[in-house]
Structures are given as structure tokens and as C-alpha cells.
């Protein structure tokens, strides 16, 4: 029996910095500790500022999911002020947000996840040449196609919000740009060409067919496009059983539309759906270099432990829902929204990727639907000044999962601001009960081959979560 310790990091092709410490026993991971080595202190900076400044500052937590941060900040302020966006404002905000999420998923698949299969470690596999050709980092033909298609898709954000990344157009009362009829046509044209990219390159068949899959057996018959290549690789090397999660998922519900969220909010545990009760959230600081008591984010503080005490190992707090770690992301959303395939494909690396692919297909369809509903004659913004004092919460679904902002302000100055990002959930450290976070748990059992200093199985598992480390600690 051999026991060793391995520190893996930095990881490339993830957003931000990440380090994972592995205890290895008999060629497999026995325990993992995830460290988020980057801390900036956004929650501290917001204190004392105009509450509206959160609209500009929080998106800068992350250049990848900046609209998600923007949306959460706008909803939190809107909640505090009792403002609701007019229906068309909600529609445009949802459209902007869904474009960003869609772009993120496509990036993840092509630039962050698939390039691992082009590595020399897989030479000799029947699909290796194809993987090299399609996905070699920064050179593969799929990567090029994806980057171009995404730049085109983001024209929609340019058009409706002036610029991407770090868009400013989403406000508590709606969006600053009232689209014209010409804008609507241009958006629909852009979406048509993105659909063409998805159907010829990524899926190789109509999106509706992929979204209509209901079982793992049906999924196995999908052979076209890069999705077909992924599924072939996946069944070949067993990604279905690699990096399995606990099967506990949370979603705040994606895209607030008039009267509903496009995809449902909820909690999935023990194979059944439960209502979401955010009051039961606590951030546990036992293994984070943070000071203060465990707290609900409406009361929590961000006070870094500059001594970096020995008993902690990450800047990341450990959020828990009713005391339990939760996994969040595309798979969680699709399970909670009731997609039959998502509910039957397991909890491993393959399931996370398929969850994201399902969401790519469904998001494109949703976007087309939203774009068709744009009515340039309507109002896109209501004015309602912020009160001097108030508190509010903004819950959204970023590409990587549940994102929440909790704000409180008094006499026109922010006095409290807490953010829990998706990767804060997924990559959280242990809590005071010693329960590991979702990634830490998923890594246990991963194979470590002889001589591997950055085990390939570990990389697949880490990237299957699509981590966004800059958001994690913020």
C-alpha cells in the first residue's frame, strides 16, 4: 500500500487560479482539498459606496459571467426598492443573460473540456487523431469554429447592451436600450446563424432532436457532430462513472420572465424534487481563511484571516443548504426543471457535460422564443428611485449555477453585501463537520496512474464542473 500527497495546480483552461491537494492511496485519490488561491475582497469594497455602484463593480468580479453578476445586482436592488422590470425589460434582460450563458457553455466544451482528449496520454485510442484534429488547444478546428461563432453570437449583447464583457445596460428597473424593429430582425438573424453552427458542427443534427432525448440508451445512439465524438470517448474511457456527485442539486431557477422563471427553481435530493428555501443557507468558515461566525449571507461578513491559520486551506467560504453541500450548474438546472434525460444520466463527468449540452440546445430554442416576443413599442424600463435604506436579494442562474447577491444599505450607502457564486458551492472547502465540498467529494476514487503529476482523471473531473475561480472567492 502506497500513500502519497500531491499538489496539483495551477490548472489552465479554467477561469482563474486553482490548486488541489490530493492524498493518494493505491493509485487512487483518497481525499482532496480544494484551494482557491485568489482573493480580491469585492464585498468589502462595496461597503460605504452608493448602492447602485454594485451594478458596475460586481460584474467586474468576472469577465466571463459578468452579465450574471449584473443581473443578480440589479435584482437585489430592485428587490430592495420594490421595483419590478416591465415585461419587455425582463425579456431583454433574460435574452442578454441567456446569450452569455450559451456562449459560456460552448466555450467550456470546445476550449476548456475537450482539449484534454488530445493529450498524448490517449494516443493509441481509436478516436485520438480526431480529437487532436478537432480540439488541440488553441489550434483545433472545432476551437476555431467555436470562437468565431461565439463572437458573432455576442453581437446580440453588443447591440442590446453596448459592450461585452462588462455590460452596463441591465438596471433594477429594466434595460437602458429599447430595441428597434431593425434590432429585432438583426437579433433573429444572428440567432439563426448560431443555430446553424450548432446543428452542423456541435450536434450535427437538429437541436430539437437532442433536446427530445429521454434515456441514456437513446443518448448512446447520437453519433453526429462533436457531441458524437464526445459520447464515443466518454463510453470508451468510462466518464459516466468518473467523478460522481452526491446527487444533491440546487437551482435558483433561470431567467425571470413575467410571472415565472423560464426554468424552475428547486432542490433535488434522494431522487426527488423539493422546494428551494434560501433561508436555510449558511456559509461555514471553519476551513476558510475568513474570520467571524457562520452566517446567512444577509448577515455574513467578509473579513480575511491574514494570518492564514493552519486549520484552514482556502479563501473560499463553504456554503451549505440545510447543513449540506450542494452541487449546482447546468445539470442541476435541467434535473430540477424536469428534463427526463438529465434525471437518468447519473451524476458523473458525463452527466455534467450532457447537462450542459442539453442546455445549449434548450437555451438556443429559448432565445429564439424570446427574440420573437420583442415588442419595440413597449416600455423596457421603469423609473423608481432607490429608497435611502433597504435590503434585497437577487438570485439568478449563471452558466455555472446558482448565484446570489444579498445587499443592505442605509442612508444611501451600502452597509452589507454578500455574494455566493456557483463555484463557491461546487468548490467549497470542508465544513465544521468535516464534510467535503462537492468537487472534493467527486475527486475521491479518481485514478492516479504511475508517474502522473497532474492526473488526467482529476483534470476531467475538475473541468466537468466548469469552475470559475475568479467568481468563487471574489
Amino acid at each position, binding site marked *: 500500500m502506497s500513500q502519497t500527497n500531491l499538489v496539483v495546480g495551477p490548472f*489552465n483552461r479554467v477561469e482563474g487560479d486553482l490548486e488541489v491537494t490530493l492524498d493518494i492511496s493505491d493509485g487512487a485519490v483518497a481525499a482532496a482539498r480544494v484551494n482557491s488561491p485568489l482573493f*480580491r475582497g*469585492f464585498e468589502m469594497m462595496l461597503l460605504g459606496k452608493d448602492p*447602485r455602484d454594485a451594478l458596475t463593480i460586481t460584474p467586474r468580479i*468576472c469577465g466571463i459571467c459578468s452579465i450574471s453578476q449584473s443581473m443578480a445586482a440589479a435584482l437585489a436592488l430592485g428587490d430592495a426598492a420594490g421595483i419590478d422590470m416591465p415585461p419587455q425589460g425582463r425579456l431583454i434582460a433574460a435574452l442578454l443573460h441567456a446569450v452569455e450563458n450559451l456562449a459560456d457553455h460552448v466555450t467550456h466544451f470546445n476550449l476548456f473540456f475537450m482539449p484534454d482528449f488530445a493529450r498524448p496520454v490517449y494516443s493509441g485510442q481509436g478516436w485520438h487523431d480526431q480529437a487532436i484534429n478537432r480540439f488541440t488547444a488553441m489550434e483545433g478546428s472545432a476551437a476555431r469554429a467555436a470562437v468565431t461563432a461565439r463572437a458573432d453570437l455576442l453581437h446580440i449583447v453588443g447591440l442590446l447592451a453596448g459592450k461585452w*464583457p462588462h455590460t452596463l445596460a441591465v438596471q433594477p428597473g429594466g434595460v437602458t436600450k429599447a430595441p428597434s424593429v431593425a434590432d429585432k430582425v438583426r437579433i433573429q438573424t444572428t440567432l439563426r446563424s448560431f443555430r446553424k453552427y450548432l446543428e452542423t458542427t456541435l450536434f450535427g443534427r437538429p437541436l430539437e432532436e437532442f433536446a427530445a432525448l429521454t434515456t441514456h440508451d437513446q443518448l448512446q445512439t447520437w453519433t453526429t457532430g462533436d457531441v458524437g465524438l464526445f459520447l464515443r470517448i466518454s463510453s470508451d474511457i468510462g466518464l459516466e462513472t468518473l467523478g460522481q456527485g452526491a446527487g444533491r442539486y440546487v437551482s435558483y431557477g433561470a431567467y425571470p420572465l413575467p410571472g415565472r422563471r423560464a426554468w424552475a427553481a428547486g432542490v433535488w435530493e434522494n431522487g426527488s424534487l423539493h422546494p428551494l428555501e434560501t433561508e436555510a443557507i449558511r456559509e461555514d468558515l471553519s476551513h476558510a481563511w475568513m474570520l467571524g461566525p457562520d452566517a446567512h449571507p444577509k448577515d455574513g461578513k467578509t473579513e480575511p484571516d491574514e494570518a492564514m491559520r493552519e486549520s484552514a486551506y482556502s479563501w473560499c467560504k463553504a456554503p451549505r443548504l440545510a447543513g449540506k453541500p450542494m452541487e449546482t450548474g447546468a445539470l442541476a438546472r435541467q434535473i430540477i426543471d424536469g428534463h427526463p434525460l438529465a434525471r437518468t444520466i447519473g451524476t458523473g463527468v458525463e452527466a455534467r457535460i450532457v447537462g450542459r449540452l442539453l442546455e445549449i440546445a434548450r437555451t438556443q430554442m429559448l432565445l429564439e422564443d424570446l427574440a420573437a416576443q420583442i415588442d419595440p413599442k413597449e416600455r423596457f424600463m421603469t423609473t423608481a428611485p432607490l429608497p435611502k435604506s433597504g435590503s434585497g436579494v437577487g438570485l439568478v442562474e449563471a452558466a455555472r449555477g446558482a448565484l446570489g447577491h444579498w445587499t443592505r444599505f442605509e442612508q444611501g450607502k451600502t452597509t452589507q453585501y454578500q455574494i455566493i457564486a456557483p463555484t463557491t458551492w461546487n468548490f467549497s472547502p470542508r465544513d465544521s463537520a468535516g464534510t467535503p465540498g462537492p468537487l472534493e467529494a467527486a475527486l475521491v476514487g479518481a485514478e492516479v496512474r504511475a508517474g502522473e503529476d497532474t492526473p488526467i482523471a482529476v483534470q476531467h473531473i475538475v473541468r466537468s464542473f466548469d469552475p470559475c475561480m475568479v467568481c468563487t472567492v471574489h
Partner: protein
Amino acid sequence: MSQIETFYEVMRKQGITRRSFMKYCSLTASALGLGPAFVPQIAHAMETKPRTPVIWVNGLECTCCSESFIRGAHPLAKDVVLSMISLDYSETLMAAAGHHAEAALEETIEKYKGNYILAVEGNPPLNEDGMFCIVGGKPFVEQLKHAAQHAKAVISWGACASYGCVQAAKPNPTQATPVHKVITDKPIIKVPGCPPIAEVMTGVITYMLTFDRLPELDRQGRPAMFYGQRIHDKCYRRPHFDAGQFVEHWDDENARKGFCLYKMGCKGPTTYNACSTVRWNEGTSFPIQSGHGCIGCSEDGFWDQGSFYNRVTDLTQFGIEANADKVGMTAAGVVGAGVAAHAAVSALRAAQRKTQDKKEEA
């Protein structure tokens, strides 16, 4: 040097056609404001010069600069520049991980010693010995200093590297520090903006690669060709400013009509950047065009100047409530004086702050 291939060879390898290459050269010439006569010069440089290696490192940041760069630029420009600079070490995009990544960095530094451009995204936090940003077990500031030591020049991408950006906002918990405060012995080109416009990023790099020298910099170290004018100077809503027509509330009729956003806190009048000319997402639009004011993200300290929605208060002398004729004349006079003052300051290389500059203009 001889073993390094030329830009053109790299591009050909990447499958970029001669036709696309020539188109790229003319796009670049116009982006740099050089005119068609320079197209052959750019093409010749690319065909004959060995490509310049670029090492791209990330500190405390949000990756928006990389994102702007790879997502936003004209597909051709992005394709060409990506293959051209062939980011020898880029943390977000490269294939290797862990120790291999560290080794790749070391190897690249060794191989191109004294010859490469170091592109820095983000900045080092100096508090607690740099412990708030750790790369490969060491504070980022050490990686930065190490990589800068043998660099030919340093590019500070974005507001983070140039000035600190929002993470340096009070109380600046991590003591996030701009690159030029840490690296003091290398030429540094600041390309501020949060993020910078993709075309500006590719333009700066192309200029350096083509002419083998730094572009002309203003007194803050920004390339003058992109940061020489205020957004206000070329804003398509400028006539409304001059006519005293303003948006008063987000949803009012004036907002629909596209009136000036000055009263909504637009910082266009004090912000030097190319947004109103080059625009964003392949020339699609820019914040003011989407109905939101400029927040001045390419200016030093933009994150700590009071609320982003406060009016720029030191410009009231423009005569907000005055009639169109009077304002028009005043504004024209001010622009003239502004250009003259700007030129004079550049020539003197005086270390004057922009606030003083504004007083001169007034």
C-alpha cells in the same frame, strides 16, 4: 533569431490565405490610422520579420481582457493575431497544466530571453507578502518580476494592470498594485479599459510587431493613437449635448430619442478612449449607444470617484442650460484649447494630472 519563423509563415501554417492576410494588413493600417500607403509596409514586415514571442500572464483579475481579445475582435484580426503572437504561455488558453505549465513558462523565458513581449492581465496584490494571488505555490508578484526581467517590453492589459481597477477600490483589501509600480526598469505600454477594446489590443500588438518599436505614448503611457481623444469628442450623441438635450430618467421620452446621457452620469467628457469610434463587439455598438453612460473605465481611479451615476461636476462651465448657439461655440473653443493643451503637455512630458489639465481647458 533566425530559427524563429516569420509572422507570415506562422499564418500560412494556420491556414490563413494570402487574400485574408492582405485584408488583415489593410484592416490594420486603417485601425492604426495609417492609410493605404502603409499596407505594403505592414505586409513586408510580416513576411520578413521573425514573429515576436508573447508571454501572457494573469494576476489578480477577472479574465475580461482575454475574453475581449478572443471573443470580440474581428474574426480575421483575432485569428491572425492569435497565430501571429502565438501566445507562448497563456494560462487561460494553453493546453498544459500543473508543473508542465510552470515548465512551459520557464522554457519560453529561456528560449526567447530579451526578445519577448510580456503581456500582463491583472495585477499583483502586495498585501500579506502577495498571498492573495498564488500561482504555482508562489505569489504572482514573483512570477511577474521573473518574467519581466528578460522581457523586451511589457504590455499592461486593461485597467487592472494599468491602474489597479475595481479590486484596488477602497479599502483595497489586497493592496492590488498596478504593474508599473512593481516593474520599473522596462518600457511599459498601458492599454487601459475594463476590458480594453479588442481592436485596440490587436492594433497595439500589430504596431509593435510591424514597426518593431513602441507606439507613441501619451504622458500616462497609453498609445496615443487610441487614447488621444475623449469619447465625448466623437460621440454620436454629442449634438444633443451641444443643444442642451438630455436624458433625465432612464425611461423618459428623451432616452428613446437618444439624447445625451450626461445627466445620467456619463463620463464620456473626461474619458480618453476609442469607444465612440472603434466601438465594441466588432464595431457593433458601445455603452452610450445602448443608452447607458460611459463609466470612464479607461481612466485612472475610475472606481473611486464617487457614484458611477453622479454627474461629472467639473464640466458645468459647458453651459448646460444655455441655448444651442452659445453652447456650440463654447464647446468648439474648448475642444481647440483641449487639443492644444494636450499636445503641449505631451511635448513637455510633464507629470501633470488630468484634473489640472481640465482647469487649463476651462
